[in-house]
């Protein structure tokens, strides 16, 4: 089995130690970092995603695979930057102001990273301007907002209104997620999409950015 396939297989099984070792070996064997990333890591996570959708594996398996992916990415990232290898896209994500629930947001961030996106996680209780400031300074293509309370979901509308006022609404994509939200609410506030779970968020971002 070639080393790229081994990386992919071990990633599917969530064997972090092996994935890290094999990634280091692939680098020392002078395998193109783009091949390690796209065919080994992202390829492996795509299989994980498909198996999850088919109910062959479950969330803990996906998260163990994501842990392996992120550990390997820590090794690859400096080489990707050095080689000027473009990523799939950049996503700024956070739980909106007044809300402290971050498990769902964390899962979305982990799965987006696993799919090959660069994710800037602003954490929880994030002020509207912070979403926009960071999206602008980091040149992110997507802003992801999470809320779990009916009292905090209106903050999402504020973010979009301020994006319009700052002139970059339409230039960046806005996605929302969280228990009290819906596709209707996304339409109502002008968001580009509502994501019902982490895997759906990955598919949605891929569709919005026409990648993957």
């Amino acid at each position: 089995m070639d080393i790229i396939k081994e990386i992919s297989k071990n990633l599917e099984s969530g064997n972090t130690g092996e994935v890290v070792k094999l990634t280091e070996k692939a680098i020392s064997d002078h395998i193109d970092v783009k091949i390690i990333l796209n065919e080994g890591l992202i390829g492996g996570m795509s299989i994980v995603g498909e198996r999850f959708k088919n109910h062959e594996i479950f969330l803990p398996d996906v998260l163990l695979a994501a842990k392996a992916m992120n550990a390997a990415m820590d090794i690859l990232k400096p080489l990707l930057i050095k080689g000027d290898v473009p990523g799939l896209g950049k996503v700024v994500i956070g739980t909106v102001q007044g809300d402290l629930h971050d498990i769902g947001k964390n899962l979305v961030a982990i799965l987006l990273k696993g799919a090959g996106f660069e994710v800037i996680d602003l954490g929880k209780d994030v002020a509207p301007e912070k979403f926009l400031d960071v999206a602008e300074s980091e040149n992110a293509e997507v802003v992801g907002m999470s809320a779990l309370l009916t009292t905090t979901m209106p903050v999402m509308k504020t973010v979009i209104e301020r994006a319009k006022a700052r002139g970059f609404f339409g230039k960046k994509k806005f996605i929302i997620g969280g228990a009290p939200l819906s596709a209707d609410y996304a339409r109502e506030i002008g968001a580009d999409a509502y994501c019902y779970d982490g895997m759906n968020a990955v598919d949605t971002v891929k569709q919005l950015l026409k990648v993957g």
Partner: protein
Amino acid sequence: MRKIFNIPVNKVIPGINTIIRAQGIPAGINPDERTLKLAQEAISIFTKLAKPTGIIMELSKEDFNEIYPGEGQNASSTPVEQIYKKSNDLALYAVTIEEEICEKISDQFSIGEYALGLMLDTVASEGTELTAQALEEIYKEHLININRFNGDYGILRFSPGYCGWHISGQKKLFKSLHPEDIGIELNSSFLMQPLKSISGIIISGKKEIFKFDDSFPFCADCATHSCMERIEKIQKQ
């Protein structure tokens, strides 16, 4: 009665099946050894760090008449309103398992132990629910001891944010109960901290007062309709 209870952690440890199902693994599918190990580890951390605590305060219907309308944002008709007006006894309550476990959950995500973090979050949420259940049991025992509860009676909990009782109802509930005494604070979004906390009203009365259909307008947005199971359980008791 207004009293604080420290509930032994071993009384509020969720069952392994509940934890496994909450990970999206359906009944009938046996989780692999690795998943079971993660669940056991999460239970072990929970047992070490959780400090289940509750506060309960009896109040009259007249007192609750002042609290229930909250900030005027409740649905026009709710099961809570229908039931409490026909009840025999009422008690405000709040429970928490305290902050340390919440910090531990965040730590797991920070260090890349996502699967354990999610598993621990599930154990903590279920453990908080079991703490509320334990407090409800304590209140029921109290009512039995003072001859205000027997086989014809039922008991049910409701919380602001559910079943048409708007989450802003927390404000007046907190003003009356003072869950700050067990370390629960309320923020401007009416969110409790520590996050793993529950508050609400415990309603006791004749079994028949708890019968209602899940056909209120807000029921359409409810993902669980768990009220139906809870009502059925009361009728069978």
